[in-house]
């Protein structure tokens, strides 16, 4: 019964072990097969689930071990994309920016195997994150559609089919990741429509994760999105949530409870105090306690420590509010 309030969860990614990072490199260099890469990813997933279970997180994920990167992975699995090579992000850091070279097509379910495998490893509830159509298009070159909007809506239709496949497989919690959204607040209406298309006929719990950015410019507009939960980074703004109080928070909140960009592990007290502020927005059963964002940038041991402390903090709060 305690778990019905302050449910704990993750955003998605977890840092990959070295052997898996190496395997991805070897796979892209043509040195190992997809099969071999897959086997190593599955091995890594076992360890991620083990960490999530040991930390006693309520709603878990596979840490996105099978995904090379959050845009690239989908670009590789949806028809119409081509990779021409790396593009600089900053300094000497690069990513594979995909090009949409022809109309996109849905080839086959992308995440269903991932979900089934995770399900075989744990009894816990599972959340499946998917990178949203707005972000994938924003982070790609568009050669095939007249404009960005058209490409986004086309991809939203494809993602809708994927979501239907996930629901059919038994998924009951889907999180749409839209990190690009807060970087273009002026395009929020396009993103809203895209999510509407993506989630059409999807009746399971739906979350929308938005990475740190100009939140004040997209709130309260995001409350109009067709999702049950808005998932935000709040720890890295020291739980300064005043901007959220300007409008009644009409959805569940994925409440960023620990900072994923700072290796310092928060104390239980800090998190309890930070999360308690969230009760000014929603009631405890609508407050999902989770890290700000994916944990992939943090060393494994620190990510694990952060999860443990976060769950402890949620348990303290549950005692208080039971």
């Amino acid at each position, binding site marked *: 019964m305690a778990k019905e309030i302050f449910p704990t969860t993750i955003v998605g990614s977890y840092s990959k072990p070295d052997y898996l990072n190496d395997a991805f490199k070897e796979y892209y260099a043509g040195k190992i097969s997809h099969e071999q890469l897959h086997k190593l990813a599955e091995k890594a997933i076992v360890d991620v689930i083990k960490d999530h279970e040991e930390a006693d997180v309520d709603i878990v994920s596979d840490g996105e071990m099978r995904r090379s990167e959050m845009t690239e992975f989908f670009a590789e699995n949806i028809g119409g994309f081509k990779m*021409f*090579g*790396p593009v*600089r992000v*900053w*300094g*000497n850091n690069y990513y594979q920016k995909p090009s949409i070279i022809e109309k996109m097509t849905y080839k086959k379910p992308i995440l269903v195997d991932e979900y089934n495998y995770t399900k075989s490893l744990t009894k816990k509830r599972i959340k499946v994150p998917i990178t949203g159509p707005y972000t994938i298009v924003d982070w790609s*070159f*568009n*050669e095939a559609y007249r404009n960005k909007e058209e490409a986004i809506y086309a991809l939203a239709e494809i993602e809708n089919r994927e979501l239907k496949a996930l629901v059919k497989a038994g998924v009951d919690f889907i999180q749409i990741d839209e990190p690009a959204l807060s970087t273009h607040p002026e395009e929020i209406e396009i993103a809203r429509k895209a999510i509407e298309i993506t989630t059409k006929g999807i009746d399971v719990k739906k979350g929308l994760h938005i990475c740190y950015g100009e939140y004040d410019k997209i709130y309260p507009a995001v409350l109009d999105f067709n999702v049950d939960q808005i998932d935000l980074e709040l720890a890295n703004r020291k739980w300064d949530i005043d901007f959220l109080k300007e409008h009644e928070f009409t959805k569940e909140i994925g409440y960023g409870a620990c900072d994923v960009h700072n290796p310092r592990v928060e104390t239980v007290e800090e998190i309890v105090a930070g999360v308690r502020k969230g009760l000014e927005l929603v009631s405890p059963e609508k407050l999902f306690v989770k890290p700000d964002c994916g944990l992939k940038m943090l060393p494994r041991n620190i990510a694990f420590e952060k999860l443990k402390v976060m769950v402890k903090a949620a348990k303290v709060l549950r005692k208080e509010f039971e």
Partner: protein
Amino acid sequence: MKSTTVGLYPRPEYLQPAIRHFAKGRISAEQLEQEYRKAAKNYIELQEKAGIDYITSGGFSWDDVITPYAANTFGFKLGGLIRFFDNNNYYRKPSLTVGLIAREWKVADEMKKKAELKAIVPGPFTLAKMSEIAPFTTEEFVAIAGQVLNAEVKALYAAGCRNFQIDEPSLVFEKNIPDEEVDAASIAFAELRKGIDSQFCLQTYFGGAGEVYEKLLDFPADLIGLDFASVASGKENFDLVKEHGTGGKKLVAGVIDARNTKMETEADVKKAIEKIRSGMKDGAVILAPNAALEYLPEVIAEKKVKFLGEVARKL
């Protein structure tokens, strides 16, 4: 028709690990320098083979067009240990590093055979907008930057450079810029080129010139660079040129899209150029990408350079 490239070029894939290896001390500064030279040489050859008239060095040692200049020139770079007055105590001697761009330009200039090598210099207004400049106001800072950059331009001139591209994307990216700031940027532009008899281009990208266009035409520049390839900015700039011309300035027409892997066709370019020319009363048109090609994967950037030279020759 003449053609030009306008900025940084994608780092070749072999250069990325070399930079990491240097940072970790696995290769020496000289070895890294060799790699930079190799990249510059290949890029210059590519542009010359493609028949580009005004080429650029590629800026392979630069992470972006702003920070190397800002960090080394507006601050002091720390040098070797020097005795602190008459004590047995030492400090690192700071030195102003004017000539940063000139040194890179000189190396690249020795590699080229027939094309003319442009120098790319960050503009005072953009430097102001991309930096924390407190306690200065934008107007104060651009005045200082104009003077400092004039020293850089003189160093470039001394090295043999006669063709300058001054990058001012912030003038078109920012909206509602106060008139005084645009005026200050124009005065700083004059300061920057003071005493130097060369071609100076006011290069814009990442936006349409909108409400500042007429003011930009009053800048003491010989050329103006505009984006005609992006959907919204392109339309805006077509309309501006149609309505106001270019005030006698030569136009660097960014018709090749540097932010999309899609290849333009000859017909697309021809149509765009005709449209631009119909609005211009005077001044030549130079064909160019609408921004640096560094935003593209290298294989596509290379294709676009070849296409740029080829299509310009045909026009």
